[in-house]
């Protein structure tokens, strides 16, 4: 139960990372000609996707474990 809700905090990381443009404003360093300001945000689309999928996995596994525990209690 703790891990199930605790993991939600991970979803707040992208807010801090992209809502403060002063952190990533600027053209250098470029990545294959792409300004930093742009590739930084593209990188966060990937990180955020990874985070949301991870949180989803953790929650579904926790839910399943809980459901199994409940069904065991019922059979006893």
């Amino acid at each position, binding site marked *: 139960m703790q891990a199930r809700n605790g993991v939600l905090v991970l979803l707040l990381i992208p807010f801090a990372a992209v809502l403060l443009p002063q952190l990533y404003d600027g053209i250098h360093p470029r990545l294959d000609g792409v*300004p930093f300001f742009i590739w930084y945000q593209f990188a966060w*689309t990937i990180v955020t996707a990874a985070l949301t*999928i991870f949180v989803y996995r953790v929650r*579904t596994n926790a839910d399943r474990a809980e459901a199994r525990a409940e069904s065991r209690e019922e059979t006893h």
Partner: protein
Amino acid sequence: MHPDEIAVFVVLGLLVTGIGFIASRWHRADLNALEEWGLAGRRFGTVVTWFLLGGDLYTAYTFVAVPALVYGSGALGLFALPYTIIVYPLVFLIMPKLWQIARERGHVTASDYVKDRFDSPGLALLIAITGIVATMPYIALQILGIAVVIQVLGVNIEVSLIIAFLVLAVFTYVSGLRAPALIALVKDTMIWITVIVAIIVIPAKLGGFPAIFAKVPAAKLDLPPTLFAGYSTLALGSALALFLYPHAITGTLASNSQNTIRRNAAFLPAYSFLLGLIALFGYMAIAAGIKPLAPYGANSAVPQLIQFAFPGWFAGFALAAIAIGALVPASVMSIAAANLFCRNIWTEYIRPAASPKEEAQVSKIVSLLVKLGAVGFILIPNLTQYAITLQLAGGVWILQTLPAVFLALYVRWLDRWAVTFGWLAGMATGTYWLVAGKFASSLATFPIGGHAGTKLYIGLVAFAINLVVVVVWSLATQAVRGRTPAYGEAAA
């Protein structure tokens, strides 16, 4: 005029609307649109929910409005990236809770929830009206998107607007809500083909990304400090607003489980990368030396870029994909707004005994009126300089429903009058700033903005005022009257 381009465009357009027409006659069982759409047994699984939720973002907003802002204003237009990065974590955190309460208490719209939660038909009415009004400029953006595509094919812009409106009206009236679900598959396939081909072919044609960015003026590649706050408030405001729109709420509540919503929220961010690539088409249009068409300026940048980069037949295919990609969501939005009217205004206040047939009829007529309202927004001169301003104006209004809908899920001590007057304060100030700026921008300077000249998104500032009224008033009421009974508890 490019005959092969026009031929492909027209054939695909007819094909897709034809599918819509067939879809409407397929299951003739029950044509009561309200039951079909609103109640749908909450049985939509992951795939259909994906189209309903994901489809909210992949509209003319993505293909026309965002790249147009990047083309005209540079890096400011990239706020769509942080917007789409944070919107799904928000959905993950908020929407499953709304879904659970809505299912327990049988709510289908935000207005249903508000009526029950605050025991206030008056507040529920305000929420319903706000949803309908805020949807209109969002539909206007779609109509404008279709119109600039038709204009690029070589048609006069007034005629293009009339065609766009008529096609949308006829499509919605004839096919109702079944069609979008069936067409979504065709539409999304066409869109993905277009995006993938475009993102490979266009940069190659322009000499690769280093060459593209070398041709863009340096000032357009990052933000001046005066726009930092504007950038983040636009992103946050847009993200908070998206899932308050009637079509987004119905789409969420129609899914079959909380897990379906979470699964979608978990996997949709993977597509934000693609949305970002589409935003970069604005830079590519600069590098390609595109000269936009009057009178809607930068809004035609992407359609013209497609025409510039592709042979006629593929340009026709891609332009059809953009037009259909605007048509289908516009249709869904107008039906959601019409159903909201029917359920929470017509049968609530005007004709409680309306037969299902009458409800469907009222819904159809209102969906037409909503589209006429949308055209009204297009006729406001400054609002269409950048199509994205239309969507952001809708955001100013829909954001004011946040305390009543989202905050009420978490905070038990909200007072109905506090929420009502908070709404009023937010609507009044937000609308005032939009009008004071002559609708030319959704950003304005405020006394509290920090650096001189710092601009903020009007919608988020109005929402902050709304929130202060709601919180202070609620706490004061609580202090005077004692503890507010929790939701579901009997009043003391």
